[in-house]
């Protein structure tokens, strides 16, 4: 008798599995959760932007968006892995210029090539900002540079997010323009660089405009690396107006693995476009000193290509890669 009962259960289970198996229809993209990878520590600009976008993104795509982290190599680890992920549109990663251009140029093998990353959308940019603590003796950029010149080269340390990143490059550019040698200390992301300055473990940070807003009381911004002063940060003078030609910052967007079908990329790009034009999102971005951009796949690719040429030139001039 017992065997009969077990036998019936088994039969029922088999039937259930078969029924369910045949019931699933062909699915339209997106039909399940999308994985949005962030390549830096939580708390940094990429993370903050993703959090701003999250709700609107869900509305635009109709599915959940799952934010995950993969930290290391200044983002290289995460982007390298993206190139090895199935190109079905369900995994995308936040990506940064100039990092994705500089890393393959500078590192022997970054694990990926710049053009491997399929551009979906470029949604913001943030210029570099040189920050010191509010109680620091350096009130202006001039003070800072003069102090650095008096000391042996390399004693001043400047923390930033990642190697071969906008922060890294910004520091090198300042070195060249001012004739000083600041030692750049790479951190896993802005999120881990901030405590370093809070605890005075580094002399200064070459970070982004967002942090100047978020830590207004604690940090003093000596200069911003944009062409003109930012509206939301009117008190920060640019490097240019103080005599140093340093214009650098990070562009951020999302990318997909190589080989992702164009139709899928378009769906994602349209979704991000809607998100960035959402008034709620725009308000938050502006408040936090992000400059919103609205570049679709073709425009983003064009920007990347343009930057590749530009940066190769800059890097040779700065001596970071061989001519």
């Amino acid at each position, binding site marked *: 008798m017992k065997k009969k009962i077990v036998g019936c259960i088994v039969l029922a289970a088999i039937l259930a599995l078969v029924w369910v198996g045949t019931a699933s229809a062909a699915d339209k993209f997106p039909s399940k959760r999308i994985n949005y990878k962030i390549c830096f520590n*939580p708390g940094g600009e990429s993370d903050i932007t993703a959090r701003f976008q999250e709700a609107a993104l869900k509305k635009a795509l109709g599915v959940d968006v799952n934010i995950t982290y993969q930290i*290391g190599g200044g983002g290289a680890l995460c982007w390298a892995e993206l190139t090895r992920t199935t190109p079905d549109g369900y995994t995308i990663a936040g990506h940064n210029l100039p990092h994705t251009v500089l890393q393959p140029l500078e590192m022997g093998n970054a694990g990926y090539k710049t053009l491997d990353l399929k551009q979906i959308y470029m949604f913001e940019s943030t210029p570099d900002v040189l920050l010191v603590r509010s109680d620091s003796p350096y009130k202006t950029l001039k003070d800072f540079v003069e102090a650095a010149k008096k000391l042996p080269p390399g004693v001043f340390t400047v923390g930033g997010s990642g190697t071969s990143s906008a922060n890294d490059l910004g520091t090198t550019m300042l070195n060249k323009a001012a004739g000083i040698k600041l030692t750049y200390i790479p951190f896993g992301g802005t999120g881990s660089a901030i405590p370093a300055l809070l605890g005075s473990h580094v002399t200064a940070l070459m970070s982004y405009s967002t942090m100047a807003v978020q830590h207004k009381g604690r940090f003093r911004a000596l200069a911003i690396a944009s062409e003109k002063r930012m509206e939301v940060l009117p008190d920060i003078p640019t490097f240019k107006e103080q005599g140093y030609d340093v214009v650098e910052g990070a562009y951020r967007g999302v990318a997909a693995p190589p080989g992702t079908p164009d139709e899928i990329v378009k769906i994602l790009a349209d979704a991000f476009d809607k998100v960035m034009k959402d008034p709620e999102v725009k308000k938050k971005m502006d408040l936090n000193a992000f400059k919103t951009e609205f570049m679709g796949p073709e425009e983003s690719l064009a920007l990347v290509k343009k930057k590749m040429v530009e940066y190769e030139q800059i890097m040779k001039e700065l001596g970071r890669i061989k001519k």
Partner: protein
Amino acid sequence: MGFSFEYLFQGFAIALTWQNLFWAAVGCFIGTLVGVLPGIGPVSGIAILLPLTTVLPPTSAIIMMASIYYGAMYGGSTTAIVVNIPGEASSVPTAMDGYQLAKQGKAGPALAVAAIGSFIAGTISVIALTLFAPTLAQFAVVFGPPEYFALMFMGLSLVISLSGRALLKGIISTALGLTAALVGQDPLTGAERLTFGSVTLTVGMDFIAIIVGLFAITEVMVNVEQRITTISEVEVKNWMPTWDDLKPCWGTFLRSSAVGFLLGLLPGCAPSVTSFVAYDLEKRVSKHPELFGNGAMEGVAAPETSNNATSTAGFVPLFSFGLPTAPSMAVLLGGLMMYGLQPGPMLFIQNPDFVWAVIASMYIGNVMLLVLNLPLIGVWVRIVRIPFYILGPMIVFCALVGTYSVRFQTFDIWVMLIFGVIGYFMRKLGFPIAPMVLASVLAQMLETALGQSLLISQGSPLVFFTRPIAAVFMVLAFLSIGRGIWAQVKAKAPEVVTDDAEY
């Protein structure tokens, strides 16, 4: 700054409605389920329930998310004790002693001690947070790269010294763990290491795969070899811990809470590190250190208490500087942000009611877990009596699913299997497993901190000794190693971990 009991009570008032209590219960239940499987952690659990939260009022949603987080921490200890699968790295010490206790038929008391310890840690941490947060925040940033390196180096040396007379084997174990962690890309520069041009190896080995392999798979192999019928033959009496069980643990609860909380304040100090440090501390102050690794109740109390304290302490950098210290914190923060809250130090000043509701709900999650899970212990404990010919394959299934769910790569489950075999040989040949585990978890942070420190000091290794806090940790580390070497020189017998313990 706004820290006061007044705000805390207000938060409790919001959190203690029937509605919110219900959602807290749901969160705890789901969190425990989710935490039971290695790999699928609170991040996934919260992510899954995010759609539900949009239809809930904000406070209820946040309460549920916080409960999931707590539930997951607890779920990890359940499988660690009952079937030797640590749910996450911080449950590894729990597995070391908890599973031995399960084999002795004391799974129930072990689970109870874990729950009680978690509760006590949560209580103490919330009070500390309320009263002392501004001072604590200052402490949090005192640690720079040299201090982090020194702390982790000390953590590693403590674990090596846990190998007792088998110091050489302990160091070899550590070195092997470091090797496994090194495969892949360098954290500072992204350069490929030990990959031999293989694209698969460039990804590196995930430490969950290593841990699950070393614990779950090895255990299955050992049990299968011995053809055991069930994990524990002992009749399970009841789940209440006896007074004898609890007596040595009171001190543990207090010490581990302190250790877990203080270290948890440091951004980036993972619960895995603090649980090993707490475990080691307990072993040193214990009156019967030889029991550790063989079923010491404190060996379960210490890691579970400290990892709860660490998670709560993570709120201090979050609220003081707007810095989430771990991905799970960031997810919680993301939840808050969906309701229009600005991340950053302004959070506290502009929205104290939300913030305190979150803190209050963390605490409620704590209480709820204790209340819900204590009776459930009876259920969990039955698992130990399931015949192994069923339980064994199920363990493998859970191990595979959990490991695969971290990165969805087949390579990871192969790593799990290979380390299962390695673990088997390590057990047979007397190599300690704990140092290998901790080494693979710490390697990346250790190297990053070292690299940053050397850049700051312009290449001088003296930086670790000229800064007071770092110096303290380094001295402790060298003392540990020195003691280990001294014990070695005195011993004459061949190297074994202890006579017949499996570790």
